[in-house]
């Protein structure tokens, strides 16, 4: 029992790293653009399929492939923001942006079905099915590498946000769009690049998700996005640190519940979300009140 629990906690933390990476992208997009990117889930799957295509057709290593897929997803993100998100304005912008990103998700999902079909696939590499014996547990290499990658990328995002001029303009835009504009921040450029960055991290998240999970198909995006949304709302919208903590915590909790009730473990996500919002409508680390956004 004890070892099972420890294993669940380790799995939860390793998985939490990946979810943290994807959730940070989502919450960053929310913070700067004030929209919820419903397409984030299917973009993760798109990232996974890009890695899949590279590894199957070009026999490129999964991690090396990221050098191509991350910039590719960044460009896709910027294009989507400029073409479909930026033109939205007016008092219905919130719901419009939700629908627009939902529509983007549907189109990407349909395109993935067209190109790759509905069958589940997994990403393969020499290290995917091997594991290392550490502290009395067999830990798959891919989970360890994935966790390391997530830590590096989240750290990179942190450094960018808090140590660079561009990061400062992102934070300024998150705090007050109008004021940022007044002091000379090119808000449109920041919005496009932030959307690009938020989407680019899904390439890395998708690769690890596709390699470590039990396979994926174009439909897997729905499950992902609902978890990611629960995570960032739980954390408090726009809170990056909160997204990290919430991801670690929820994935660990899910993995513990999974020991007894595998069918219901995902329900923990949503139940926790509902419970937290009943007590604290701002989410755990939210600055602005969800009530009065």
């Amino acid at each position, binding site marked *: 029992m004890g070892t099972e629990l420890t294993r669940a906690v380790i799995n939860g933390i390793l998985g939490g790293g990946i979810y943290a990476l994807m959730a940070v992208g989502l919450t960053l997009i929310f913070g700067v653009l004030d929209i919820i990117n419903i397409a984030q889930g299917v973009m993760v799957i798109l990232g996974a399929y890009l890695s899949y295509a590279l590894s199957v057709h070009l026999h490129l290593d999964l991690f090396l492939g990221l050098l191509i897929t991350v910039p590719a997803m960044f460009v896709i993100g910027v294009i989507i923001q400029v073409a479909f998100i930026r033109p*939205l304005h007016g008092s219905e912008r919130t719901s419009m942006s939700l*629908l627009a990103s939902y529509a983007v998700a549907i189109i990407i999902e349909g395109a993935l079905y067209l190109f790759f079909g509905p069958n589940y696939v997994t990403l393969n590499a020499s290290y995917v099915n091997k594991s290392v014996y550490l502290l009395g547990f067999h830990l798959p290499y891919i989970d360890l590498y994935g966790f390391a990658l997530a830590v590096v990328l989240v750290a990179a995002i942190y450094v960018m946000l808090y140590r660079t001029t561009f990061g400062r303009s992102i934070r300024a835009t998150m705090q007050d769009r109008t004021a940022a504009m007044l002091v000379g921040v090119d808000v449109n450029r920041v919005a496009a690049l932030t959307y690009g960055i938020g989407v680019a991290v899904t390439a890395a998240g998708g690769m690890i998700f596709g390699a470590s999970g039990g396979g994926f198909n174009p439909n897997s995006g729905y499950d992902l996005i*609902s978890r990611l949304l629960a995570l960032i709302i739980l954390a408090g*919208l726009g809170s990056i640190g909160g997204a990290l903590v919430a991801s670690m915590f929820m994935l660990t909790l899910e993995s513990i519940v999974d020991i007894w009730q595998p069918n219901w473990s995902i329900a923990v996500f949503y139940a926790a979300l509902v419970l937290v919002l009943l007590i604290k409508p701002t989410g755990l680390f939210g600055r602005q009140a969800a009530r009065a956004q």
Partner: protein
Amino acid sequence: MTGQASPPAGQAAAAGARHRKSVGWPAGRAAQAGLIVLALVAVVIFPLAFTNQQVSTIAFLTLIFVCAAVAWNLFSGYSGYISLGHAVFFGSGAYAAGIAARDWHITGTAEFALLPFAAVVAALIAVPFGLVALRVRRHTFVVITIAIFFIFQLMAFNLTGLTNGTIGLNAPFLLWDPVSFDQRFYYMALVLALGTVAISWLIKGSRFGLQLRAIRDDEDRAASLGVRAMPVKLTAFVISGGITGLAGALWFFFINQVLPQSGFDPLFDLTVALMAFLGGLGTVTGPMLGALIIEPAQQYLTTQFSNSYLSQILLGALFLAVVLFLPRGLIPTVAAKGSGWLEQRRGRQDVPATGEDGDGGADGTDAGIGSPAEAGTSAAADAGSGDTSAPAATSKGPAS
């Protein structure tokens, strides 16, 4: 219809709205009434003229979606709380009917007695759902509705004792020949759809409807003026949920089977919202029009392309086109064009007084969506009908 009780927020505006409508334009009114009668005749004789099973199936599904879209709009469109979880009610209605028919051994036409039961179950589910979700606004509300939706889908999958899990439930068998089966279901769906439109219309003109729209425009201001926001929102949510549940049960009897992924379908949430957006959010006729366009188009695409993925991509592209090029929806856009045209014809003088009449039942122009000029016109018209209408009718700036 226009609430009788004495009045904080919307009463004067309600009186104003009624007044403006009754001033009317007789020829326009007559033409409108004629069109409505023609449309009614057309929908009534439709199944007699077309007995092709494919056509009648599409017609039935379209009516179900008219019902669902109008019901969705009478909560989300009027209150501004965009729900992406209405499939909870649709699925719950279907499952409630299915479970009751199985456990109470109801067979044949007696199944229709379960329709009100399904509506009540869906409405009862809407109470705790609303109490949790309506505490938060905007994005958070949307996400909560999605989360609760997934909880319900999960329950349908996992509570196998109740729902049969992935196998789903079957409806009682009806001994009707195919043609009269389709016709009878068509008329039931027609009655349901017309009833829903009537309820939506009644709510829109009522004090309750004005309170909802005041909440949409500025909830804190509405609350400070005496609108009891939570009960008002919850009531609309429950009405909307109950109707959606009823539609779900009827759909289940027609389709004959409900599965977790067909009853609780995320695309349902999105499609219903899109129908309302396409037609015009917060208008009476808009969601109906949206459903009449989108559902047949969707069914047609599905049958035309053997490849359902291509039709999915086209559907997504249609969504995007609506959001980008028709952000206010068909009815308000056309109404604005129409009143702009009237404006030119009559000269600018009497615009505030008559501009609103041109758009008939579809007064989307009071939504405060859209260009400053139009918002200004409608604000001016409303200001003319009493100062207290301000919170319900003034336009708000961009959200961010």
